[in-house]
């Protein structure tokens, strides 16, 4: 009985969270025009959220591409189709792994730091201080981070994909001896710009960027102003972002493919 009540509470709480997250999105979007006055702040956040994530994104992209090259080579070798490894590596990266892995890494690297930063600003009264200095914290703190995430994600995803292709090429061509020309010609004949790159890479990662940064700023902004509250909010950012990314991935794949 009490377990059921508890479960209902969890469901209601989750719904409440989603609802207030949606309302928060409206507030952020309403503040975006005002935040354009703080372009500098957006640029600064783009540096922290985007440029600082490049190392992890590039390293992971390289390894994902290399693993794919290796795995797919051995599967394709069974059918004597190793020449197709270029196209299979490219399609797997563009359609799924690129956007999803980039978004998961982004949630772990940038999302948590956004949440922790805003949460600490809340806990140390910096948000209240801005209110008192007649500066809207949504426009000055939240919107620039949201925009930075929105802009950074597709760019990071492109870098990830390029590194992945490079890694796949490294393993497939340089190591396992797939013909260089075949690798590229197979890839170029199967990859479609609109279907795979615009829909697969760009739109998906824009969607992921919006969701990840919204969750990060929301958790940070609404955190309980204590050290436990910040820690808890950071954890929730990763959990909620991961679930949201994979669920949204399914929806976007169904609509875009």
């Amino acid at each position, binding site marked *: 009985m009490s377990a059921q009540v508890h479960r209902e509470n969890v469901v209601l709480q989750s719904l409440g969270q989603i609802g207030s997250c949606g309302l928060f999105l409206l507030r952020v979007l309403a503040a975006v025009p005002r935040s354009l006055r703080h372009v500098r702040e957006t640029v600064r956040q783009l540096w922290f959220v985007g440029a600082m994530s490049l190392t992890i994104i590039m390293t992971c992209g390289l390894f994902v591409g290399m693993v794919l090259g290796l795995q797919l080579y051995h599967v394709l070798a069974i059918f004597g189709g190793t020449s197709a490894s270029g196209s299979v590596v490219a399609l797997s990266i563009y359609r799924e792994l690129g956007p999803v892995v980039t978004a998961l890494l982004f949630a772990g690297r940038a999302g948590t730091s956004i949440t922790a930063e805003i949460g600490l600003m809340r806990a*140390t009264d910096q948000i209240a201080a801005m209110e008192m200095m007649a500066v809207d914290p949504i426009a000055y703190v939240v919107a620039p981070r949201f925009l930075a995430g929105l802009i950074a994600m597709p760019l990071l995803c492109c870098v990830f994909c390029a590194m992945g292709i490079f890694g796949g090429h490294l393993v497939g061509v340089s190591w396992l001896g797939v013909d260089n020309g075949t690798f590229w010609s197979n890839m170029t004949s199967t990859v479609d710009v609109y279907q795979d790159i615009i829909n697969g890479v760009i739109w998906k990662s824009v969607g992921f960027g919006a969701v990840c940064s919204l969750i990060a700023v929301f958790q940070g902004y609404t955190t309980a102003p204590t050290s436990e509250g910040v820690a808890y909010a950071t954890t929730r950012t990763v959990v909620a972002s991961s679930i949201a990314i994979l669920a949204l991935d399914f929806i976007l794949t169904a609509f875009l493919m």
Partner: protein
Amino acid sequence: MTDPVLAKPDERTLVRIRGLTTVLSGKTVFDALDLDIPRGKVTAIMGPSGTGKTTLLKHITGQMRGDAGQVWVDGFNVPRLSREQLFTLRERIGYLFQNSALLTDFDVFENVAFPLRQHTSLPEVLIRNIVLTKLQAVGLRGAASLLPTELSGGMARRVALARAIVFDPMLILYDEPFVGLDPIALHQVLKLIRTLNETLGITSVLVAHELEAIKQVADHVYLIANGKVVAQGNPKTIADDGSPWTRQFFGGESDGPVPFQYPADDYAQALGFKEGIA
């Protein structure tokens, strides 16, 4: 009946609170509170912990709104102001947070320059001059390039004070400015509050517990308890006005109008010495 938004500013009173009633999660914080803060004076607000002194400051700045009553600040009825009007009013109010609330992203100079950069498009030279003047006033011009994490508590509070006065406000609210300061830093802050008040004529409101410090700096003291003003007067003489509240608060007695025991059921019954229904 709707409350008016604007009134003619009073010549002598900057902040006028009338019938302020606030209930927070079932607890009555203010019960028809009336309070006046005179222009150009230093007013101290004291009271036992949990009586809503900080909450009162938040009502003055519009960060919180009461359930009833009026809060007039320089002719504006704060609870009725729109967000834009409130922001305009806040540009003329300085607020010193208990923990300074410096922006950790910026160094001391940028922290003090922050309000200027946000609300004006002054040339860089002018901003530099204003900021250095304010930093000089709090004695920290040499610390301009330090980060907030490199400052001691007292220094951080002085930087926050420099930031609060960068627009030459008409009113500064100090939230517990003496907490956690060593005697030297405490006297530095005391001196600053006094100097700012005397040289710039800034009206100051400070929330504090330290009677000795308040005696040195304040012109008027309000003692708040149970959501009402229970005593007021000159800080040097208020302790002797004979009311039980002042006797307990300033005399430091553990029991009195503010009970030692948090309200509870009958002690003997809780321990089981008394039969259920006596």
